[in-house]
């Protein structure tokens, strides 16, 4: 049935999109405040996946405890990186932080490769993964499968995105973040504690990416040091698609990308899956760099 095919792709696309969203949010928040693209963000995601492995396999934590473990470790890593590699360059020209971020990305990647090995590592089954056929359950559709993993991923992702929204909209720290993203200098002059807010933003963004990492480990049952490269690029594309600097934009872009990928894999050539993100990126940058939800920047002369 055509409809059930479509539904299947949508289900796959949504859970993939959720993962992209968690990563994209980190990119967009850091860019919104510091106007800097953290090239190393994909490595936070990769680190989170490995921390998930450590939590589940090495420490034997249950699933619900592994997640906070990932949040804390990945968040702390980001705070350290920001403190020592990015903060000294704050306010400098645009190239220096970019190069530093590239350097951090390489360092994190290589550290993990040297420590944990370049080979993919098996990720434990965090949850009993059951696959349901919707048709059986609901009685109408056939051949549409939903994995328990997918539901957990989608559900928890939405949960964490909800928490993020709460933090950003309803807490003083969130207000400070929003103030910084609107006008950094004015906020500083108004006494907003810049260093704390920036550190917190990095912590938030990286922990979301780390959660995405553990989800992906769970879903594909393997992780490897290079996983952050492609995922980072795709999540970045999602953020650009939605409008870099915009939180709803990142979510919109991520789900759009996830669904587009699923549709292309389903209806077209699966080997072109990765090319979708590239294509979208180039097209967006050429024609609408400020994204779907963004507004074009006016040059002040």
């Amino acid at each position, binding site marked *: 049935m055509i409809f059930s095919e479509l539904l299947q792709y949508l289900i796959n696309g949504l859970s993939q999109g959720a993962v992209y969203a968690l990563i994209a949010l980190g990119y967009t928040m850091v860019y919104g405040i510091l106007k800097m693209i953290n090239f190393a963000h994909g490595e936070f995601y990769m680190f989170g996946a490995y921390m998930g492995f450590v939590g589940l396999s090495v420490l034997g934590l249950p699933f619900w405890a592994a997640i906070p473990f990932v949040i804390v470790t990945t968040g702390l890593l980001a705070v350290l990186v920001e403190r020592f590699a990015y903060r000294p360059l704050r306010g400098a*020209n645009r190239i220096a932080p970019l190069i530093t971020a590239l350097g951090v990305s390489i360092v994190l990647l290589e550290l993990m490769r040297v420590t944990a090995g370049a080979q993919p590592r098996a990720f434990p089954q965090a949850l009993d993964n059951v696959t349901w056929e919707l048709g059986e359950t609901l009685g109408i559709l056939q051949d549409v499968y939903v994995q328990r993993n997918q539901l957990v991923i989608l559900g928890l992702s939405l949960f964490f995105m909800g928490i993020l929204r709460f933090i950003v909209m309803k807490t003083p720290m969130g207000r400070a973040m929003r103030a910084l993203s609107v006008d950094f200098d004015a906020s500083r002059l108004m006494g907003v504690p810049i260093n704390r807010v920036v550190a917190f933003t990095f912590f938030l963004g990286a922990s979301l990416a780390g959660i995405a990492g553990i989800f992906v480990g769970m879903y594909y049952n393997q992780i490897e040091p290079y996983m952050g490269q492609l995922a980072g690029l795709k999540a970045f594309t999602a953020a650009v698609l939605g409008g870099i600097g915009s939180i709803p934009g990142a979510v919109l872009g991520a789900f759009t990308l996830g669904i587009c990928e699923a549709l292309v894999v389903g209806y077209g050539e699966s080997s072109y899956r990765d090319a979708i993100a590239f294509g979208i990126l180039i097209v967006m*940058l050429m024609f609408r760099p400020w994204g779907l939800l963004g507004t074009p920047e006016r040059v002040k002369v």
Partner: protein
Amino acid sequence: MIEYFGQIFVLFGINVILASSLNVINGYCGLFSLGHAGFFAVGAYSSAAFTTLIAPEWTAQSPHLALLVSSLIAMGTAGIAGLAVGIPCLRLTGDYLAIATVGFGEIIRIVFLNMDVVGASRGMPGIPRLTTIPWVIVGAAFTLIILNNLIKSSFGRCIKSIREDEIAAQAMGVNVRFYKTFSFVVGSLFAGLAGSLFAHNQEFLHPSNFVFMISVSVLLMIVLGGLGSQKGAVLGAFIVTLLPELLRLNEFVSQIRMLVFGLIMILVMLVFPEGLLGLLKKGSLKNKFFKKAKNEPGFSGAPL
């Protein structure tokens, strides 16, 4: 042993060409291009295609001429690639430009990865070894001289003015779109030359020779030496060529070669963002080694 040093020198020469060509785009024009490996690849594959597929017999007969011709072809095709990348990127600023160029570089690599006529993922073997040390010297010298003549001319001043202040440059009548495109083309032309020398030295080409990390390495060369400085480009190329070889001496250390690269990148930005030459400019080192003050411009951080 001589063979080994000869190889290092050839690689050094190729890196000099790559570094000074990227310097035109990044250092002098101030455009953040991270896709240089793409132009390098276009030059390498097109020149190799000529000597291997199109005119192998003639190549065998007149190797020197063949290298020359294939290098010209490499420059031409790479220049066209530079045009194809530069024009769409005209409207992009800073970070966006960087990402777009990464994208283009990757697209070029993926194209070659899927192009059967040059071997796709199996690679392209059997490229005649035409590159010799004299030729590398000629190529590098040619590049350095031409680019120096370019930058120390009215054209060069227009290019630099874009880096300094694009809006003011336009107000002074500089056709910014033209010169940005021009910078891309010049940079890509010489990257193509480097590609030809590379292909005819390696004898075997594979798309993995042109991954994003290569673009990063070339960027590291000019950042290390000092953005916007020819001498810096040569110095940076020297260090970046030598470093892996030095690290190779120790078994363990050679494993962490890329890690060291990354650490160097971070360190340079934190400690001496104006590169080694910038470091020499200020402070007592300068007074120690150079008597006369040489006004060597470094990259001051004009906002992109």
